[in-house]
Each structure stands twice: as C-alpha cells, then as structure tokens.
C-alpha cells in the first residue's frame, strides 16, 4: 500500500505540486481577503475617529469569520422576473476571473526545494503574463454588467451600464500605460519585467521602473482603481444614487462572491503596481547593504512581543489565549530568520514583495477614507481627455528615449 502510494506520488509529482500550490494560494488569498475587510474597516474607522469592529474577538479580529458565517446562513431569495441563468452566472464569473488572475503573479525569485521537487513561487509563469492578465480583466466586466442586467431592476441596470462604460473607457488607458514598462523590459513575462529592474543592484530603489515611468505609473494606478470599481471611481455601486448598484438584488453568498471578487482584484492590482513599477521582490536598498537582511526580523520580533503584551492585558479569556499565541509564533519566526541565514536569504524576495503589496492595499483604503466620488461626466472626460492622451504621450516619450539613449551616450563620450 505504502509503496503504491509513493510510486503514485513520484509519477504524478508535478501535477500534485501544482494542485497543492493552487489550494494553498486560494486559501491564502481568501484569508487575506477576509482580513482586508477588517483592515479596511479599522483604518477607515480610525480616519473618522471611530473604533471600527471591536466586539467579536480581540480588536474585532474574528469579525471576518462572523461575516463569513452570516453570508453563508442568510436567506438567499431569488427576485421575481430575473433571468435565472445569467443571474447565477454573473457572480460566478466575477469571482472565478478575479481568482484566476492571481495565478499569474510570481511571489519570489528563487524556487523552493522540497522532497527533490523544484517549486517556483507562483503558479503560471507565462510568456504573455501581462497580456493574459489584461485578457482576464477584459472579461471580468461581464460579471458586473450581467449582474446589473439580469436582476430585472432599474438600479442594478444603471449600475451595470455605468460599469461597462467605465471599464471600456479606462481599459484603453490601462493597457497603454504599461507599454512603457514593456518597452524597457522587452518582454510580457512578469519575472522578466522584475529582472529588467535589477540590472544595477548597487542602485537599489533608484533602479526601479517608477523613476523613468512615473507618468505611466500615475496613469496605470488611476486606471486600475477605476477598473476595480473602487473609490473614487465606484459609480457602479454609488450608494447615494443607486442603492447598491449592480449587486442590489443579490443576497447571501452570491453577494459575498462579488465582494470577494472586488477585494481579490484589489490585491491583483497591488501586485501589478509592485511588479511593474516598484521592482517586485527587489530590495529598495543597494545590494552591498547586507545588514538590511535583518529587517524582517527587526520588524517581526518587536511586533510579536507587542502582540504578547497586548494579549496579556486583554480583558477577555479568549484574547488572553489567542493573542499571546499568535505573538509567540511571530516572534519565533523572527528568531528563526536570525538563526538560519539561508532561510533569511530565501525570505528576502517574498518579504519585500508582500511589504510593497501591503503598502498599496493601504493606499486603496486611504483613498476610500479621503476622496469623494467623481461625477459621471467628470469620470468620462477624465478618462478620455486626460488619462488616455497622457498614457499615449508616455509611450512616445519612452520609445523616443530608448532610441535616443545610445546616440546620447556616443555624443557624451565618443
């Protein structure tokens, strides 16, 4: 029996590794999604001088679990007169496409070696990585548009119409704004794009694409926020005019699917910004500063100790058990990183990538707490009259600079 099992595992190792990676990534992404809602509510609450969720678990940390249970247990009525097939298809499509796009993101430079298997961090390493992502984004508009149409109700229909118009308009600027990055890297592959920013390891942060492509980054980020239907471009679900926009008629888990899809695409956009403009897994410090390798430990150990201290003085029994436990785990990870330099070396890439993604997620929440919503005509004229010309200008400027650079070099030192 055992010999059969080992031979089966050996024969299908690649497929099993892929399946495990997919399951693990789905688990991580969905957990991060859940805690992103907690994070967003906490940060927006503090910006508005409130406490945010604080009743369920310590610091409201179990609130996402309570929300999940509520989504699962709520009654799920199907409104009269809906187009049944499309009504059920729309949330499925939104969620499936949002989760698929995560598969293309690479999460670290070096592969992991376990049981004789070489495991890349990331699922699909495609030659056409960025194009495949845009293909998925291009399809994801149907989730919103069809949800709006199939609900057979006026507010969702208006939301769906707004969303399709908005996404078609901003997709052009989104695609044009990355052309500069592609010209610099000479590839669609996301790993190649990151490696193209690592040509001068001694420059650190100055070698990233953000400096030559600052115009492209601004266009990309604005267009990407518009594509994910987030504030200040959340007109498809503007609650003051459209109740809840395209998902007004959805309840229970079908609503949760739209919710998860939106948060997942926030994560994807953060990953893309990081990879294309902020050096992906590259450290912002020059390569010669080896002492910065201890930065993950320097952050993790004090944070873990603080969590332990915070848990001990917490008033509920549950908080006194959970928080010190989590704090001990975090501190232990920090200690392991100091004690085992190879592990520390391996963790550098993913650490910087995740840190940058976290900063972008914070920016998303920050914008939601700060910016008012656009008016519809402002949104359209902004997209067509400012963003698209700017991104085309960026393409022309970048192409010109790449062509002129060798000539300029010859002219300076012949």
């Amino acid at each position: 029996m055992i010999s059969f099992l080992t031979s089966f595992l050996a024969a299908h190792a690649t497929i099993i590794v892929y399946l495990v990676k997919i399951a693990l990534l789905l688990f991580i992404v969905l957990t991060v999604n859940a805690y992103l809602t907690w994070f967003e509510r906490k940060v927006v609450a503090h910006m508005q001088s409130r406490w945010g969720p604080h009743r369920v678990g310590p610091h409201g940390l179990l609130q996402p679990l309570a929300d999940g249970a509520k989504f699962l247990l709520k009654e799920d009525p199907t409104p009269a007169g809906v187009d049944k097939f499309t009504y059920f298809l729309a949330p499925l499509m939104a969620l499936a496409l949002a989760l698929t796009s995560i598969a293309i993101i690479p999460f670290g430079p070096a592969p992991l070696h376990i049981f004789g298997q070489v495991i890349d961090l990331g699922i699909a390493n495609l030659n056409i990585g960025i194009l495949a992502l845009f293909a998925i984004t291009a399809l994801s508009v149907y989730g919103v548009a069809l949800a709006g149409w199939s609900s057979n109700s006026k507010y969702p229909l208006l939301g769906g119409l707004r969303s399709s118009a908005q996404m078609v308009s901003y997709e052009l600027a989104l695609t044009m704004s990355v052309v500069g990055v592609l010209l610099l890297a000479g590839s669609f592959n996301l790993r190649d794009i990151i490696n193209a920013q690592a040509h001068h390891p001694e420059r650190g942060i100055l070698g990233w694409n953000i400096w030559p492509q600052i115009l492209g980054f601004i266009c990309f980020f604005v267009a990407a926020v518009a594509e994910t239907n987030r504030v200040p471009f959340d007109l498809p679900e503007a609650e003051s005019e459209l109740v809840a926009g395209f998902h007004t008629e959805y309840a229970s888990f079908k609503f949760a699917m739209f919710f998860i899809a939106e948060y997942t695409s926030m994560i994807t956009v953060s990953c893309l910004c990081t990879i294309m403009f902020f050096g992906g897994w590259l450290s912002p410090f020059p390569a010669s500063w080896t002492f910065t390798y201890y930065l993950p430990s320097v952050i993790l150990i004090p944070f873990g100790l603080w969590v332990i201290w915070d848990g001990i003085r917490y008033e509920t029994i549950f908080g006194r058990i959970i928080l010190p436990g989590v704090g001990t785990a975090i501190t232990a990870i920090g200690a392991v990183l100091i004690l085992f330099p190879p592990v520390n070396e391996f963790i550098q890439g993913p650490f910087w990538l995740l840190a940058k993604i976290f900063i972008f997620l914070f920016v998303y929440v920050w914008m939601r707490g700060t910016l008012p919503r656009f008016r519809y005509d402002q949104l359209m004229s902004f997209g067509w009259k400012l963003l698209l010309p700017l991104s085309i200008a960026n393409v022309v400027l970048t192409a010109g600079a790449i062509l002129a650079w060798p000539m300029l070099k010859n002219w300076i030192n012949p």
Partner: protein
Amino acid sequence: MTPQLAIFFVLATLAVLGALSLIFQRHPIHSALSLIVVMIALAGLYLLMGAEFVAAVQIIVYGGAIMVLFVFVIMLLNAGAEERTNVSKLAGVAGIPLAVALLGFLAAAIARSNESAQAGLQSGALANTKEISMMLFKDFVYPFELTSFLILVAILGAIVLAQREKS
C-alpha cells in the same frame, strides 16, 4: 489520442455549440454570451497552435472590448426577446445552398493546401510576439497602416452621422 487532440476537440465542440446557440437563442443577451463563448474557444485554439499573443489579443479585443460594447448596447436599448417568424423564402432558396457551397469551398481549400501551410496549423509551432511585430511593422507595414486608416475613417463617419442633427 494525444492530449492536444483531446483539447482541440473540446474547444472545437465548444465553439460550434456556442455558434449554434448564438443563432437559436431568442434573447439578444444570451446570443451575445454565446458569441463570447465562441471567441474564447477560438482563443484557446490559437493557444493550442502556439500563437500566445494572438490568443491573448483575441480575448482582449473580441472577447473583451467588442463584445462588451455589444452587451452595453443591448442593455442600453433594453432589447427584449425576439419574435420568431417563419423562415423567409430567400433564406430557404438561396441561403442554405450558398452556405453548403461555402463550406465545400473551405474544405476543398484546406484539403488542397500545401504542406507548408499545414505545418503552420500543427500544434507546437511557435509564433512569438517578436515575429508578429516584425511582420506587422516591417513586411506588411503599408497594408497594416491602411487598415488602421480605414478604421479611423469609419470612426469619423460614425461621429459625423451621430452629430448630423445638431447643425
């Protein structure tokens, strides 16, 4: 049967079913959805032939941009389910024989095509992005730019037609 062949038949069946559903669905939105299925199945077939770039562009341009506009217009007009009429005489007399003739011509052309053309249809033949761009912007630059110009003229025509009432 190789895996490639199996995938080909799955995608081909999907494309044909989508195309049939496009014709037989009574609601415009369902027809549009069927057309999206056809587009994506075609993109899968391109991918099977190693044309990654064409596959991605097929989904971005046809599956995404163009079909979104179709769906947008159908939603904007709030078009209802179409009413069935009897098959018109012209379709029965001229349409069906013409369709059969077209199929025959296509089949004959594919069967008689030389080996080099068929080699391009084999799976595993790689057409990378660089070669495509070389062809578009070097070998066929004038036809390519002329086509772009044609599309530009069409856009201008649409604007002129839409604005006629104002003047």
